[in-house]
């Protein structure tokens, strides 16, 4: 796709920011400690990246989905985990609020999130309810003006430093499956809310992930988000937007790995010539670049289809997420291969891309869930 001048400038700005600010020191520290870096977060927030896609009236930048995609892609090209920093408020954090928040809720919760002053995370998954979130067991029982929440959420990205969580809980205890589920905005400082220890992950270290445990948490009815018993559909709709974000993250990760591989293949000499002179290597590079370009076209088209209200947008989001994330894994594996033994050493960037890419076929719906969405859409 040929980008408009506006989007070209957008890409240039995101690239310039990532290349300048996402230093090797910051990336190494994030990978080693697994801790959140407030300094780089504040910098991103200062330039409005926490609200790229959020409307201006709620403190955001009023961007379209393509701008948001470009941000995730360019950030992930340098550092996939730092792409998540700016992504969350724009997608899973802000999405449910934008979909059905009242004006009061939007002002109170979305505006500070879009400005990067508060963190909102998305809490859907449970130990027994992953790809099948309809089987969740977290309950919310009404008691006067309050709902009393009990249950446990797991793998919640950003939970350890979150100010608020969008929590899904069953409000209609008679219903089963996706029915009878509601959304709540839970202040993480409420009595009864606690977090598990940050998970020790394979990749995307530097964005802490943990359980959220809810024990008799009293949430005021004004923090019920959207209609009672009907939160599931909103979760699914929000995930469409999140899936585009993961697709963009995957694309950027693959692009970064390709660029590293091209540079290495030109510089590394064996048998008296650069390894790029061997077709075994150069054809791998050609395959990687071709897959990336195909993925990019699918993703950008999907972003535009979503903004245009295309009826196929939901299926396209799944296709983009499915293809881009699987592609990123193929590309990153080849990138390690081209680097040879050095590619297995942490000094070389491709090792981290390879580990980071692995989550992308899993979170915000596994590849298998995407296949379900795509095939159902085809066969309906």
């Amino acid at each position, binding site marked *: 796709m040929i980008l408009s*001048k506006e989007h070209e*400038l*957008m890409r240039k700005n995101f690239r310039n920011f990532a290349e300048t600010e996402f230093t090797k020191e910051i990336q190494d520290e994030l990978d080693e400690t697994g801790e959140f870096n407030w300094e780089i977060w504040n910098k991103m927030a200062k*330039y409005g990246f926490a609200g790229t896609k959020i409307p201006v009236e709620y403190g955001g930048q009023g*961007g379209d989905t393509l701008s948001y995609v470009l941000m995730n892609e360019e950030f992930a090209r340098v550092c996939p985990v730092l792409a998540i920093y700016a992504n969350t408020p724009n997608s899973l954090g802000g999405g449910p609020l934008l979909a059905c928040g009242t004006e009061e809720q939007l002002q109170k919760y979305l505006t500070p999130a879009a400005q990067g002053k508060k963190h909102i995370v998305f809490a859907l998954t449970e130990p027994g309810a992953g790809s099948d979130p309809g089987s969740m067991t977290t309950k919310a029982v009404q008691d006067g003006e309050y709902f009393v929440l009990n249950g446990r959420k797991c793998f919640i990205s950003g939970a350890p430093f979150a100010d608020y969580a969008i929590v899904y809980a069953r409000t209609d205890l008679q219903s089963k499956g996706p029915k009878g589920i509601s959304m709540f905005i839970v202040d993480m400082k409420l009595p009864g809310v606690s977090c598990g220890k940050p998970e020790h992950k394979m990749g995307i270290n530097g964005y802490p992930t943990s359980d959220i445990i809810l024990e008799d948490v009293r949430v005021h009815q004004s923090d019920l988000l959207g209609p009672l018993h009907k939160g599931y559909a909103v979760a699914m709709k929000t995930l469409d937007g999140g899936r585009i974000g993961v697709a963009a993250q995957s694309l950027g990760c693959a692009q970064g790995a390709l660029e590293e591989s091209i540079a290495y293949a030109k510089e590394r000499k064996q048998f008296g010539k650069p390894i790029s002179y061997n077709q075994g290597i150069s054809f791998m590079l050609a395959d990687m670049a071709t897959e990336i370009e195909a993925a990019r076209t699918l993703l950008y088209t999907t972003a535009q289809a979503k903004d245009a209200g295309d009826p196929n947008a939901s299926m396209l989001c799944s296709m983009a997420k499915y293809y881009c994330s699987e592609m990123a894994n193929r590309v990153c594996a080849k990138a390690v291969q081209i680097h040879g033994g050095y590619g297995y050493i942490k000094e070389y960037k491709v090792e981290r891309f390879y580990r980071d890419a692995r989550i992308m076929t899993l979170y915000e719906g596994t590849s298998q869930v995407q296949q379900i969405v795509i095939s159902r859409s085809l066969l309906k």
Partner: protein
Amino acid sequence: MNIVVCIKQVPDTAGGVKFNPDGTLDRASMLAIMNPDDKAGLEAALRIKDATGAKVTVLTMGLPKADVMLREAMAMGADEAILVTDRVLGGADTWATSSTVAAAVKKLDYDLIITGRQAIDGDTAQVGPQIAEHLGLPVISYAEDIKVEGDSVVVKRQYEDRYHMVKAKMPCLITALSELNEPRYMTPGGIFDAYDEKEVTVWGRADLTDLDDANIGLAGSPTKIAKASDKVAKGAGEKVNLDPTESVNYLMEKFREKHII
């Protein structure tokens, strides 16, 4: 307070320089960027704007594609942008460039004019001071720090081994060093505004009334570039096998020969 910042679109020389077979710069194959010193000058103006609410106008003379750079400046926070573009202005040396830019600046309200110290393509560092001459203004070049105090500016002016603090009454012209500051990034909202809400004013030759035809373009340039060529590549290295003192003497002699020392 009105600040005019003169900026130039230049090829990005960071990734190396490419030449056409005839020896001229292959501008088409190189990325175009805002000249780094100019960007620092713009940032300095924007900081004065943040502190005092000054109005910042960016001005450039160049090809129509310089529009992108002006949008970038507006996305960073400049209020207005002016593009001076006309075929008859092409091929200008520093005299013709400064005459033209000064004629454009004369049409604007200004208290302070900021330019970069020098552009990374021409490397002359002449245009800023020449604009000041054309306008009859004091000039402070090589600014490392700029402060506004009432109707004056206080500038830290860099020398090779020292700096001077220079105070000048406005209006005046300052040329900025890229060491002056770290320019801000654009914001996504700023980029939207730069394209959807703001306009670039385009001026041609006819709009510059206070300008003599004898002072513009290639024809109005006292200097002409006779020839341009790439640097001659270094030959193979030389290995010397002498005792340490003799080696040092040999090296020093070679350095002197090549005017390195």
